[in-house]
């Protein structure tokens, strides 16, 4: 028999960025909030031995323990789905802070175009630009409606940037802190991109350019450019993360606590409301029920969808009939990129996760697609994250992958190689979706989430076009050898690409084609909110966290309102 805990006003499932934002805002407003986090507590003091590529970047110390839980994957419905037995393509978060601990800190706002993609595409290119197999839809909120929440997230995180990107949406305020340092490597890109007529700007960064105190009174330190950022926690407290900002803010109110080692396995429902959640204490194996007035799923794209599926809340998407919304519009990203080999040695090992320069000349609809066989595009960036020696063994084409010649070339080129990459938006397709796996289970006996995903025609076309543009920039930068990435074929879950998974619990204005409304309130249960990049009806050409952060702040406001008024918010 599960033991029942005291009721709280709000329970969050998971305490990463989204759980932290919801907790901070609701606790400040006087609601009693409890976070249930399957992992353990951790913070800056735990990152003192962090400059260790092997432990953290290769063996994934900070990430999800897959022996307990993973997903299954297949490229298409005729393939047998098999478990992702080792992390690869994306690196799921676990423990306090979630993936917000080991993220890079690239903090973008999606483009105004993204939120109204269907309307704007049809207006400009007609109804048949993409085939009906692509499930484009507007998000139901506009960029302008979200702008104050973008601003709020950026202020909480202290984002460092410069407001010079002509393709970005209008900002009500400048960035809270100035941009990071323009290093020689970035300047090379800036000069080349400018001379080609593009508009380079410093990538908005959560590795702060200077010490900063956010509106909640949390201090974030100045980045030391130590080069151990992505996949690592910051030992300086200089990379904005939930455990140095929103979590302490929530704690200070006295209205928030966190139960660790609490793995939620079910959302409990009665009529058109949820009553709480059931979780397993992962140390004792005991089951508990946590009753709550409001349940907020903040357990990342995968677990948010899975928990709704195993709890039978909402209708599972069916690709044959097109009916159902849960699991629909799963999206990922495509990464056109080019490597350039140079004569001179560069300080590639210095850097920071979000140290970079970007152009948006080929992102969104900032260029004309009339004669192109795809829509949307990619942000194109050079970054200087601190290149690591185990993972980076660059050899020009024709050099074998091992042996004497490999050793010589990989060592020679380690400090003479630069890459430019694009983050390509992926458009939702009727065959790309999430469902429950019929065969495989997690350590608690709950079915695994199953992912059916492949790159589509649109992705391949976009990838090719962008690769050519990127190669032109690399040539202009003066690389002696320019090696474009191969054309993409099938999505492969093995090599790391991005942890920018989207969809499955999408937002919208109509229960017929979305899981939650524009306040992220579930259509079928008014006191259930689902927060994460799963809300995106399609993926964009940027990293997602800035945009989910904005949606989370808007949802937090809605939850407070709901706590007073009840009922549907739309």
């Amino acid at each position, binding site marked *: 028999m599960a033991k029942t805990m005291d009721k709280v006003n709000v329970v969050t499932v998971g305490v990463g960025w989204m759980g932290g934002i919801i907790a901070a805002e609701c606790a400040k407003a006087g609601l009693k909030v409890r976070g249930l986090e399957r992992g353990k507590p951790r913070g800056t003091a735990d990152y003192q*031995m962090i*400059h260790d590529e*092997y432990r953290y970047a290769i*063996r*994934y110390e900070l990430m999800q323990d*897959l*022996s307990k839980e*993973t997903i299954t*994957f297949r490229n298409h419905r005729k393939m*047998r789905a098999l478990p*992702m*037995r*080792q992390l690869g393509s994306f690196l799921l978060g676990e423990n306090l802070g979630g993936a917000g601990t080991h993220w890079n800190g*690239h903090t973008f706002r999606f483009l105004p175009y993204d939120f109204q993609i269907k309307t704007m595409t049809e207006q400009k290119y007609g109804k048949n630009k993409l085939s009906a197999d692509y499930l484009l839809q507007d998000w139901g909120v506009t960029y302008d409606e979200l702008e104050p929440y973008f601003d709020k997230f950026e202020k909480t995180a202290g984002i460092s940037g410069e407001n010079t990107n002509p393709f970005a949406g209008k900002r009500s305020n400048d960035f809270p802190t100035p941009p990071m340092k*323009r290093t*020689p490597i970035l300047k090379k890109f800036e000069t080349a991109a400018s001379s080609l007529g593009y508009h380079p700007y410093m990538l908005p960064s959560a590795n702060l350019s200077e010490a900063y105190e956010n509106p909640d009174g949390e201090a974030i330190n100045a980045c*030391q450019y130590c080069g151990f950022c*992505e996949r690592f926690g910051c030992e300086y407290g200089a990379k904005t993360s939930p455990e140095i900002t929103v979590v302490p803010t929530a704690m200070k109110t006295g209205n928030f606590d966190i139960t660790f080692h609490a793995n939620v396995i079910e959302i409990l429902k009665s009529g058109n409301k949820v009553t709480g959640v059931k979780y397993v204490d992962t140390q004792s194996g005991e089951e508990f029920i946590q009753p709550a007035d409001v349940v907020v799923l903040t357990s990342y794209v995968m677990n948010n969808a899975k928990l709704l599926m195993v709890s039978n809340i909402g209708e599972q998407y069916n690709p044959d009939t097109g009916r159902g919304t849960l699991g629909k519009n799963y999206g990922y990203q495509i*990464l056109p*990129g*080019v*490597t350039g080999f140079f004569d*001179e040695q*560069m*300080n590639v*090992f210095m850097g920071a996760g979000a140290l970079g320069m970007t152009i948006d000349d080929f992102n969104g609809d900032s260029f004309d697609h009339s004669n192109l066989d795809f829509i949307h595009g990619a942000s194109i960036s050079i*970054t200087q*994250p601190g*290149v*690591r*020696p*185990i993972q*980076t063994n660059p*050899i020009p*084409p*024709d*050099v*074998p*992958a*091992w*042996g004497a010649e*490999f*050793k*010589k070339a990989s060592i020679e080129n380690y400090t003479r190689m*630069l*890459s*430019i*990459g*694009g*983050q390509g938006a992926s458009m939702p397709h009727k065959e790309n979706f999430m469902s429950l796996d019929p065969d495989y289970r997690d350590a608690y006996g709950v079915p695994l989430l199953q992912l059916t995903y492949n790159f589509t025609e649109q992705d391949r076309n976009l990838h090719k076009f962008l690769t050519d543009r990127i190669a032109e920039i690399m040539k202009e930068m003066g690389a002696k050898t320019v*090696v474009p*990435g*191969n054309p993409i074929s099938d999505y492969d*879950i*093995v*090599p*790391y690409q991005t*942890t*920018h998974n989207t969809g499955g619990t999408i937002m919208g204005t109509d229960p017929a084609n979305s899981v939650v409304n524009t306040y992220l309130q579930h259509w079928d249960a008014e006191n259930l909110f689902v927060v994460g990049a799963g809300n995106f009806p399609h993926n964009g050409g940027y*990293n997602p966290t800035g945009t989910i952060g904005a949606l989370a702040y808007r949802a937090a406001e809605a939850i407070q309102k709901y706590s007073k008024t009840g009922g549907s918010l739309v």
Partner: protein
Amino acid sequence: MADERKGLSRRDFLKTTGIATGALVGGGLIGGLVGYNVNKGGVETKSGTKNTGNHDATSVVGLMFFTNHADFNLLSQAVERIFPEDDLGPGAIGLGVPYFIDNQLAGNYGSNAREYMIGPFFAGEATQGYQSRLTRAEMFRQGITKMEEEAQKRYQKPFVDLDGSQMDEIITAFQKNEVEMKGVSSEFFFRVLRQATLEGAYADPIYNGNNNMDGWRMKGFPGHQMAYINLIEDEKFQKIEPKSISTMQH
């Protein structure tokens, strides 16, 4: 032999080595991700040195996984072929890679402790990744036995007594998936062996590889440094004496 390394298309190799193409900006590493081309064949490497490790007298390094010197010596020779000693500096043996791999096999790495190992197991497509029921420890044990068998079959000699090009021929046969293994493909074993070799060459020396930080020194990587804030705008390439994470403990 040189010619034996031909035959895999670049695409196939990329697929099977877990190396993505292009530069990863999306929260990812910016790697030497393109250019792995085994299509044009490899180049003959000189026969590797045959001593097994030269740790300094004060360091305590021992075998935690292998119970048999023959197996350990075979592993040593194989990884030296992958990352040989040359005029740039030590190869895998000199860097302690065999000890690194041994020690790792004795721990979480060897037992796949943080990976999903629940059945049923099916071979799957290349895009679905690792699907073996074998742990890495079991895979290495079998792989080493198989390498020895190949040596006996092809040359009626122990692997460690072959000359460099003969060893390369056998390693290449694994790479091209021409050797039968149970529960895993030989090509997959090769991939893990290659990756483990690079890990041992460039991981922090606290893991008993990258002896004397010579892997880093060759590559110009300074290891653990607290900060580059005062150097990062400098146009000049900086040669910095590397530092191990172990300096953090004092």
